[in-house]
């Protein structure tokens, strides 16, 4: 029995065959009575033409009916799979087959005008073709796998309908989740059942390098069907767009746009960056198979949330969806620094003096940008007013001050702690204790038993901020730096050593940057007053980059991957939750958007959604005013359309299982193009009808 991808079109086609007859009967003219003296001539002429007329009428009727039938077949898309014999051989075996159809964004890539998903559709339909004693299930694999049924079913027509309705989603492929889901279904199918797992995908390298089939029962026959073309389709994409630093109202803001060029030739691209009502065009060259960061500078006049996008201009590539990336920008008022120190402002040179000058190197900076406070007399309100807290020689902090600092850290403030005195070790321990699980220092500081002198840096993570400011010359610049003072440190087991950005030659930590709640804590382990770092040319840029990094936490979140679970803490000023509404982007249809929910938590308002909505800028508003904004975007890895090689799949990733890899060659392409031939035949019938009518001079 022939199978059809869109079987609903078959009865319509069969009915439509009768359409020409029906039209003929309905439109047959009613003859008018007319007396004529030359009826004999009319009769003679009609008799002469009757034979040809009948031939013409039959030909026209046949061609019309054939054209309609072929059109219906074109829409129905018959599946001319040649594996009927194999199916017959398996007919006596109970079979459970799970088909994973990749519907991630990369399946929207178009080659020669055909989407990869369109090539995948007939393959999936052919694998869901009816066979006796077989049950099927279909998993539409995106960021979250979506099985059509809970367990394999005989209702293959519904599965075919789902295949016909499948669309590429702006999501990455969560392969392991899909394999896990399929494995559970196959494992539950019972004993003595032949298990088959069919995966139809473009086998994008970014998604498949970590494929693991161990979740699938060992006796499962795994078949991988690729729809990727032999040549990787070229693609350009905006991979990231956001502010380089904290955006401040009235000051130039630099926006970074990372563009990926996944093609064998270098490209010069232009990107229109829009934020609010401002649009800036930036241009740059992107190397082949590489990335380039373009910088757009714009000045945003007002503080608040600003939404926009970065759009590649005049680009015609395989995947158009990733040429646009939404952008959300939080524009702040100029930051205020709070320097908590017991040192006098008049004490020069001193550690706090160096820090103050490094934070505000410009003479023209507002004098009240840095507020120097003595912790013993500082009111909590003034401490809380600072966007960045700098602690240098603070002395013993009170419990209230520790609790306040931890609270500010959790809310997203940045803190730079220069540890020069033994009491600082105590303060850090109390801060860590007060923060609980939110703050896990990679090292434990303790007062140094011996004098720490002439320490130099041995292990510097120059590829991470703040050392990126020096580029490749970081080690050379920092080679002359000699540090004195500070605390001894000991590594904490199971802690993130990546947070230790620089280490002294005695293996104690020099610079630690670690997260605490929504904020960041940086610890510079040195007595700046006794070191030569302040006199080094590296000091100002290092402290500047470090403060930017700490303030950068409030520059706004990067885009959330579309289609994936999302949990975002709203700023503390967003409270209370009542009165807040989530406004989707104008481009999103109401049906396609899952907005999630806003919940009041102990730390503030949490915005949760099981599935982040389609790409766009979502705003949380109260009384029409935006209090928070968030962008969702296509994951950047979907832009690289390079497929993983067959050998890696069948040898390395198969894990010893029997994995069959099939790439549909030209014959299968021809099968996929059956509809095109049918459409051509339909067109030929229409043309034939016209030729017939012309030939018979009707």
């Amino acid at each position, binding site marked *: 029995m022939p199978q059809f991808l869109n079987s609903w079109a078959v009865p319509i086609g069969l009915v439509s065959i009768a359409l020409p007859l029906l039209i003929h009967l309905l439109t047959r003219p009613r003859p008018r009575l007319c*007396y004529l003296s030359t*009826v004999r001539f009319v009769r003679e002429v009609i008799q002469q033409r009757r034979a040809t007329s009948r031939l013409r009428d039959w030909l026209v009727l046949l061609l019309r009916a054939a054209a309609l039938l072929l059109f219906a077949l074109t829409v129905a898309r018959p599946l001319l799979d040649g594996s009927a014999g194999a199916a017959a051989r398996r007919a006596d075996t109970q079979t459970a087959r799970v088909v994973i159809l990749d519907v991630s964004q990369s399946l929207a890539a178009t080659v020669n005008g055909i989407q990869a998903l369109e090539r995948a559709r007939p393959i999936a339909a052919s694998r869901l073709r009816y066979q006796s004693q077989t049950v099927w299930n279909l998993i539409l694999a995106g960021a979250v796998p979506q099985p059509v049924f809970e367990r394999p079913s005989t209702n293959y027509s519904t599965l075919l309908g789902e295949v016909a309705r499948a669309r590429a989603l702006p999501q990455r492929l969560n392969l392991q989740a899909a394999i896990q889901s399929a494995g559970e279904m196959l494992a539950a199918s019972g004993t003595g059942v032949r298990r088959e797992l069919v995966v139809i995908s473009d086998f994008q390298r970014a998604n498949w390098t970590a494929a693991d089939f161990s979740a699938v029962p060992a006796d499962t026959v795994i078949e991988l069907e690729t729809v990727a073309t032999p040549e990787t389709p070229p693609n350009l994409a905006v991979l990231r767009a956001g502010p380089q630093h904290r955006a401040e109202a009235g000051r130039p803001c630099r926006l970074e746009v990372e563009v990926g060029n996944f093609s064998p030739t270098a490209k010069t691209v232009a990107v229109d960056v829009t934020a609010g009502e401002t649009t800036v065009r930036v241009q740059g060259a992107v190397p082949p198979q590489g990335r380039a960061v373009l910088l757009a500078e714009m000045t945003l006049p007002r503080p608040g949330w600003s939404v926009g996008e970065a759009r590649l201009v005049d680009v015609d590539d395989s995947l158009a969806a990733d040429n646009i990336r939404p952008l959300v920008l939080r524009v702040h008022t100029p930051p205020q620094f709070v320097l908590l120190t017991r040192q006098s402002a008049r004490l020069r040179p001193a550690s706090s003096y160096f820090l103050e000058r490094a934070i505000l190197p410009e003479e023209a900076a507002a004098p009240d940008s840095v507020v120097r406070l003595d912790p013993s007399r500082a009111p909590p309100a003034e401490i809380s007013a600072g966007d960045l807290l700098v602690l240098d020689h603070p002395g013993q902090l009170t419990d209230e001050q520790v609790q306040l600092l931890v609270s500010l850290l959790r809310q997203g403030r940045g803190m730079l702690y220069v540890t020069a005195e033994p009491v600082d070790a105590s303060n850090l321990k109390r801060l860590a204790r007060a923060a609980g699980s939110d703050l896990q220092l990679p090292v434990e500081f303790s007062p140094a038993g011996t004098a720490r002198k002439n320490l130099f840096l041995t292990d510097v993570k120059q590829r991470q901020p703040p050392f990126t400011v020096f580029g490749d010359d970081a080690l050379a610049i920092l080679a002359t730096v000699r540090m004195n003072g500070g605390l001894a440190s000991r590594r904490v087991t199971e802690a993130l050593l990546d947070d230790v950005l620089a280490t002294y030659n005695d293996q104690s930590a020099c610079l630690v940057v670690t997260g605490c709640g929504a904020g960041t804590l940086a610890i510079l382990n040195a007595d700046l007053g006794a070191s030569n770092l302040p006199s080094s040319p590296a000091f100002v840029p290092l402290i500047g980059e470090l403060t930017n990094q700490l303030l950068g936490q409030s520059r706004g979140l990067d885009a959330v991957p579309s289609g994936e679970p999302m949990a975002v803490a709203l700023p503390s000023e967003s409270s209370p939750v009542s009165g807040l509404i989530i406004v989707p982007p104008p481009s999103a249809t109401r049906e396609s958007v899952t907005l999630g929910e806003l919940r009041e938590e102990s730390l503030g308002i949490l915005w949760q959604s099981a599935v982040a909505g389609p790409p766009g800028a979502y705003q949380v508003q109260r009384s029409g005013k935006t209090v928070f904004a968030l962008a969702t975007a296509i994951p950047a890895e979907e832009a690289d359309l390079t497929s993983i090689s067959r050998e890696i799949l069948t040898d390395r990733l198969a894990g010893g299982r029997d994995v069959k890899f099939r790439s549909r060659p030209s014959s299968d392409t021809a099968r996929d193009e059956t509809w095109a031939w049918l459409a051509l035949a339909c067109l030929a019938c229409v043309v034939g009808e016209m030729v017939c009518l012309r030939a018979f001079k009707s």
Partner: protein
Amino acid sequence: MLTRPATRFLELQALAGLQHLRFTTRRRIDGSYSGRHQSRQLSGSGEFVDFREYSPGDDLRKLDWKVMARTGRRYLRLYQDETDLTCTILIDASSSMKFAVPVAEQKLAGTKLEYVQYFATALTHLLVSRQDRVGLAIASDQLQHFLPPGCTPDHLQRVHRVIDRLSTWPATNLGVAIQELFNRFKRRGVLLVASDFLCDDLAGTFSALRLFRSRFWEVVALHIVHPAEEKLPAGDAFRFVGLENEGTINCTPAEIREAYERRFEEHCATVRSLAQAAGCDYRRVSTAVPYLQTLSGFLAERAG
């Protein structure tokens, strides 16, 4: 001369403009009385036209004695006699002649028979006014009516009355009717046949006309054609009904229009060629042309 028309087809005022025209024949004719047409007889009462050498058996009364006296040779003097014309009009009264405008939208009116009635009435009036004799025959599948030639006003009134009261018969066999008519004549004359020649046996019709030609009659074939016959009516579908019990037929004119027109022209060409082959004068008359114009053209053409 008639002062009061006896028929609705006689338009005396319109015919006044044609009084100067006369019906002339292409050949010399036989007549009963003296008239204005050249007789086939070259007797001694007409105008001198020629000499001819005497042959034994010639009438000695025509011998030119003076020439014989001067030259010793015997010559006859020849004179052209003038005689009256005997014209018989044969009207086809089959039902096909009743054909008029088949569709109301067309702005043509009148049947072919009416056209012939006007034409024949006018022609007979002109002929009798020239002291020529006029006969009338009505034909369908046989000779339905016959009025022998005459030239009196009473005769003319009878002719007009018959023409006025013409009705049609649902069959045509002109050949039989013409043959029947032929048997009724003993003398020569002119036969004018007004018909649409829409009959099954065209060959029989013209063989019958050949009988007249063999007796040296001058035969004129007026082929009456209605413009609505030349082309099929415009429209999607028609049910055509024959006028001579030919049944009905449904068709879409658009499909056969060209073929029909070709077939009709073929019919006209056939009639023309048969007429010319039989030695008849052929004239195609369209009812779209006013009958007076047709008549004046006909008479003028015959006058040369």
